């Protein structure tokens, strides 16, 4: 274990703690993205660039985008339900 790896693992633990302690889903999705990017850095440090490459895109773009879309969809459904309740 070299110093760089120890540093990255410590940052990873810290960012994991931060991610689970955030309660607002939107902020949590961003924190999850940061956690994933640190994971990609860790894969790079242990010499797995193939895995790091997919991790960067999955955690940096794909996962937050899907989470945000899902949250937006839930919100719009709630709004639609409220509208229907008001109309009745």
């Amino acid at each position, binding site marked *: *274990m070299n110093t760089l790896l120890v540093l990255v693992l410590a940052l990873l633990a810290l960012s994991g703690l931060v991610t689970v302690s955030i309660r607002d889903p939107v902020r949590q999705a961003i924190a999850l993205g940061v956690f994933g990017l640190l994971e990609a850095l860790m894969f790079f440090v242990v010499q797995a660039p193939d895995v*790091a*490459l997919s991790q960067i*895109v999955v955690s940096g*773009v794909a996962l937050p*985008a899907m989470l945000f879309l*899902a949250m*937006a969809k839930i919100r*719009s459904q709630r*709004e639609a339900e409220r509208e229907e309740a008001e109309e009745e």
Partner: protein
Amino acid sequence: MRDRPGGFSLRLVVGAIGVVLTVGGFVWGTTGLHPFGSEHSRYGFYTAHHAVAQRHATNSVVAVAFDYRAFDTLGEEFILFISVVGVVVLLRSLHDEEEEPEEEKLIPEQRRASDAERWLGTALVGPIAILAAYIVTHGQLTPGGGFQGGIILMAAIAFIFLGGEWVILLRLRRATSWVEMMDAGGAAGFAMIGFGGLIATGAFFYNFLPFGTSGSLLSGGFMPLANVAVGLEVAGATLMVVSELVDQRLLRPPR
């Protein structure tokens, strides 16, 4: 509440059994492993030293994933395919529930992205799509391959979404047939490559194409073809999830 204070509830017992089994299994499973960071994996050593000589592929990771262990990758690919089918089955029931409004009315003033955001988002689509094509086609030479490149291609389209060009994504949602074809065609194409080996030599996923010069774009036998098939499948699958999640109700003005 059924939990008696001080007494053992059933929940606690079940939880304790689960914790003991998980921790015990984890310790049992990891004690026999090589120490962290050691370089004594015989399989890794073998493939790193023989991938170029046997398959003319300079990236031994892709040589393992798309040639030596291509059958495992077929399973992985179908895991993705089936999970996306599940998502689509769950979400598509909403598809025809309401009439789709005119496109001009879809984006109200308040929900439009700023000019800078639109410019940056749109300007990044092309370069990222080219990067995706590069990563897919150079899988057997440098780190990358179909899975990584496919998801980067999806990210290129996600930049349209970040640029606020909702209308394009809605069109994508209405014309999902080509995304579906991309997904299904990629998944089937990879399996077809396996059957090609079966037909040519009698072994499923036998690398039946000429290996070419190592270091060139068309080297490693069927690896470039397999990477393109998997790249299309991954991009199609992830795009299908994104397009199913995009809902025209998201575009209504906030009240």
